[in-house]
């Protein structure tokens, strides 16, 4: 069972890397979300998958009897899911704001904070201070 899950983690990571390497911001976001899910599945697999009793201590007993499933990965994954979810929510809102500000989802064309490459054409919303000051560096883009 672990080996199947391990292969699944590998496929997820491969998909995530493929998506993150794209220039489209939305694809990158999807890739990151798949990557964080892969990490969660990886922790789950590292905790070993067992078919024993659930890790619940019966009433009036201090220590459970027999072998129980490992409860720690659940706690780790729960923490990681909550954190990953909140970070991803923030990143999505930021992507939306980025699109609204710069009118592009192409991360290569986002050059507001940095000067554009020599000769690079940048959508008018995404051009930075440098370009504002020095029109020679940035050819006009027809809207």
């Amino acid at each position, binding site marked *: 069972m672990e080996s199947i899950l391990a292969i699944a983690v590998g496929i997820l990571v491969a998909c995530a890397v493929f998506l993150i390497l794209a220039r489209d911001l939305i694809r990158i976001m999807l890739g990151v979300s798949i990557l964080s899910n892969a*990490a969660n599945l990886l922790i789950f697999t590292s905790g070993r998958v067992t078919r024993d009793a659930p890790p619940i201590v019966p009433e009036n007993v201090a220590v459970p009897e027999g072998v129980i499933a490992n409860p720690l990965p659940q706690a780790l994954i729960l923490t990681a899911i909550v954190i990953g979810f909140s970070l991803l929510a923030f990143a999505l809102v930021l992507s939306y704001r980025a699109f609204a500000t710069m009118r592009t989802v192409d991360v290569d064309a986002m050059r*507001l904070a940095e000067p554009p490459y020599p000769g690079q054409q940048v959508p008018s919303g995404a051009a930075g*201070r440098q370009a504002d000051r020095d029109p020679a560096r940035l050819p006009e883009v027809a809207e």
Partner: protein
Amino acid sequence: MIAWLLFWPVLIPILTAALCLIFWTRPDVQRTLSLLGTAVLAAGILALFREVWTGGIVSVQAGDWPAPFGITFVADTLSVTMAALTALIGLGVAVYALGDIGHVRESNGFHPLFQALLAGVGGAFMTGDIFNMYVWFEVMVIASFGLITLGGEREQIDGGVKYVLLNLIATTLLLMAIGLLYGATGTLNLADLAQVVPGHPDQGLLTAIAALFLLAFAMKAAVFPLYFWLPASYHTPAAAISAVFAALLTKVGVYALIRVFSLVFTPTHEFTYAVLLVAGIATMLVGVLGAIAQDDVRRVLSFNLVSGIGFILIGVGLGTALGLAGALYYTVHHIIVMSALFMVAGVAQRLAGAPGLNDLGGLYLKHPWIALLFFFVAMSLAGVPPLSGFWPKVILVKAALATDAYIVAAAALVTGLLTLYSMAKVWALAFWKAQPDHVVAAAGPGILETGEMSRGEQRLTLLPVAVLALATLLIGLYAQPLLTLSERAADELINHQPYISTVLGGEGA
């Protein structure tokens, strides 16, 4: 009582952040709380520092769960020094923010986010559990996401996208590395890992995990070739925010790197140390060359920040006690100087109303004190004696020569020279030269006299810069105490048996 002080770097900022949130609609109350909170934080950490300095390593188990099952907090010389610097910079930035942060950012939650950032940084320094370290990283990261986009200016959104994406990927990689390490060893406590890892049968797997950790921490610490998010984003937020980022965030990555690779992955030294040396040299040189090429003052400083990380890395990568001591000395110096430089650059940019070297100028004539402060701190960064940047570079070069690593020594010296050039260039172009004609023509001759800052704001922002400049002079003139401190911290890292036995109790020996 000492057990309580260990939680101080986390507890006090969290309580302050909570109080700031309760007074959400009252920025004036938040301002007082923020100042008070950082002052209390600094006082408590200094007390903890004294305890650790006289009594040695201390550890405490949260919730009374015994190690290695519960979450451990440990204070050794390194972690408590870093926590003390966090509090010092926190206090400085809290004062600086009074004159810099502005009403919009304040009413959108600067103070609670700033305190949450301090809590995350402090927690990452104090924890003795690798998963808990991940959690504090995330607390720090999410607070920094809020801070870097706070105010929502157009450039901030662009810088924020790059910062957020790279940090998201880095923390996910860290989580994967932690998951794999847990799968291989079955424990998450750093001291316990230090015992389990050397005797582990599958060292090849552990080397792969170590490489993943190295990758994740290197992304956090802005190491070549994973540094490019830093100069893309650090110049965009308010000056107070970039000052605290420059001082602390990359250092947390460096700290985690030092901690994990001195304590857990000792058998893989040769591989990781070779990687660290090469990455360190590349980071140093690329950083300083980037700094020379840039126009925006804070972007110049961002590249210099990257270059400084390279210095720390070569100290770690040399693998000797002297090299490590030099790296730790450099870390202390770099935290102080970098935050001071970002602060004074922020003041200069606001006074001149322009960020770029082309538009700045004439500041020496109108504001000689600001120009002198910048000059002073910049020379310290460049390593001019008797300021604090001189000694760690001497130690690092000495350590490199002692291990016959001549290329490392040469790279460090070249970088030092180029840093001097880049700082001199900034000073000459931004402060010394006359105000450029096109700026005078556009804004009128009076721009520098009033700027956008009132006298009171100028005093508030320059006070912490002056204190930090004094600190860099003092640790330059009286280098011996800090050197002793660095050597002791390095010794604790290399001979880590006391750390393990303190955390795990008697059975660790």
